[in-house]
């Protein structure tokens, strides 16, 4: 099995997000950058498939120099090869990202491509299925279990209010959902080995893909209204407090 994993470096979820001057991007200083948590699931799943069936795991990221850190993490976890596509400062939306990644993936012969269900920065929920569309292959989203046999993949995916078990032929793309696996931590020898592995860096201008101008642009950003400290409901007993709360919910907040 030749497996490709798409991964992105994002701010850690505990980051406090502030808006930068200009109002269309976030402040990047002081942010702890990590591999997108859904992409960790993708790397882990790829490694488990390789362990069972053999083959190789190649990780791809379209991102600035700094994104090398996330690729190194994937190598330290056990991925075989890492490719970074340098956007050369060009602005990208979800679709242009998908175009560039699909262009590079087409140069290989991958049986399975694994992406995250979403990247927790842009929350586009887009790149995985868009890459599959551009490559003309099927995709299954939000996978919590998969099994590959005889050139076919069978996946359990979550949907609103339940799950589906679906099957399709390879090559295919799947996106990850929590519950798929528990990503491993990189071992110390893994980290040492990863430091020595070369990262195949490709400049956007050399890829042969012109993603064009992004069609979606951020024109403004604001922070959602913040709740102030709440009113603590006092009372002598649980019942007294409950009574006061229900009264407040009914008469003041009018929600019940």
């Amino acid at each position, binding site marked *: 099995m030749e497996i490709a994993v798409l991964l992105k470096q994002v701010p850690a979820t505990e980051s406090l997000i502030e808006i930068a001057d200009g109002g269309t991007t976030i402040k990047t200083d002081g942010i702890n950058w990590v591999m997108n948590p859904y992409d960790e699931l993708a790397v882990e799943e790829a490694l488990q498939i390789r362990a069972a069936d053999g083959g190789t795991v190649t990780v791809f990221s379209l991102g600035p120099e700094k994104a090398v850190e996330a690729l190194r993490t994937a190598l330290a976890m056990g991925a075989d090869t890492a490719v970074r596509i340098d956007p050369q400062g060009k602005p990208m939306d979800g679709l242009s990202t998908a175009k560039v990644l699909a262009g590079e993936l087409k140069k290989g012969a991958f049986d399975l491509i694994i992406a995250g269900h979403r990247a927790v920065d842009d929350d586009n929920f887009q790149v995985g299925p868009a890459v599959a569309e551009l490559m003309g292959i099927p995709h299954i989203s939000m996978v919590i279990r998969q099994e590959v046999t005889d050139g076919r993949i069978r996946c359990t995916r979550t949907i609103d209010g*339940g799950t589906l078990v679906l099957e399709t032929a390879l090559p295919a793309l799947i996106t990850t959902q929590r519950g798929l696996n528990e990503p491993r931590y990189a071992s110390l020898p893994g980290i040492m080995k990863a430091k020595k592995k070369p990262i195949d860096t490709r400049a956007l201008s050399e890829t042969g893909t012109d993603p064009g101008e992004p069609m979606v642009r951020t024109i403004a950003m604001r922070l959602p209204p913040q709740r102030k400290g709440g009113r603590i409901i006092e009372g002598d007993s649980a019942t007294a407090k409950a009574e006061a709360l229900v009264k407040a919910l009914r008469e003041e907040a009018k929600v019940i």
Partner: protein
Amino acid sequence: MSQAILAITEQLDGSFKNVSFEVISAGKKIAEKTGGPLIAGVMGAGIEAIAGQAAEYGADRILLADHEGLKDGLSDACIQAAAQLVAKSGPAVVLIGATSLGKDIAARLSARLDAPLAMDCVDVRVEGDQVVATRPMYGGKVLAEVSLSGTPAIVAIRPRAVEAVAAQGQGEVEKVDISLDGTTLSLVEKHMETGKIELTEADVVVTGGRGMGGDDFAVVEALAKVLGGAVGASRSAVDEGWRAVSDQVGQTGKVVAPNLYIACGVSGAIQHLAGMASSRVVVAVNKDPEAPIFSKCDFGIVGDLFDVVPAITAEIEKMKG
């Protein structure tokens, strides 16, 4: 330029999901600006009987893709059908609910049509000749305004973000012959949790955190039940194996926006708050007066949830008589 708005609806077992009416209402607002028409797209098998309901929210035309292959709501068949509804109606804007199925359709449609997509939006409008949408990013920590250039502009709308408003439309139902050639996904099994209210669609969400101390969520379930709401969980409760991943609220779980959110035994970590911050009223029950959740709620009760939550349930039952 075309001014038509196509609102793609979603149904489950022969009834429209609520988000369908929200999406049509969002379309109505835009169609008033562009001059319309507002076209509703309905996809499924044997659903002719319900298609006309789209007119009750203002659809001028209803395009019906009725095909046996759309019975199970598989994403690739629905994408084929949606693409043909777009080809048939030539819209300036395509609106769709950002459900698990809607997100799949929107993402592939955008790539297929080389068209801009704004996912999981809480508002959409037309400014001049630009479509502008508001969408949460960073798990809800930021609200971004994005402009979409290119046709059609595809906007996926988060459930419960836009109000469904009744408005009579002409709503003639036109059947569209569609072909599902080239679909490859096959369904092996479908498992639906019956009688369960979907978290993202619920009016009331009662969440249990690590403070539940185990997988017995009876007190939280009882409160959700009297309020007609759904039960959520913090990631810790999910990681402990007490609840399913699909119950998780937060930055890496579901984003919910009910009228009333009641957090029980949840400390209020930033990743949890990101998933519930747009709830209208937030109540926290926690035994630790210093818990961060108390600074992000409207009403707080300090106490043991196993005493307080049943007392709230009893009080509501009393109120309802």
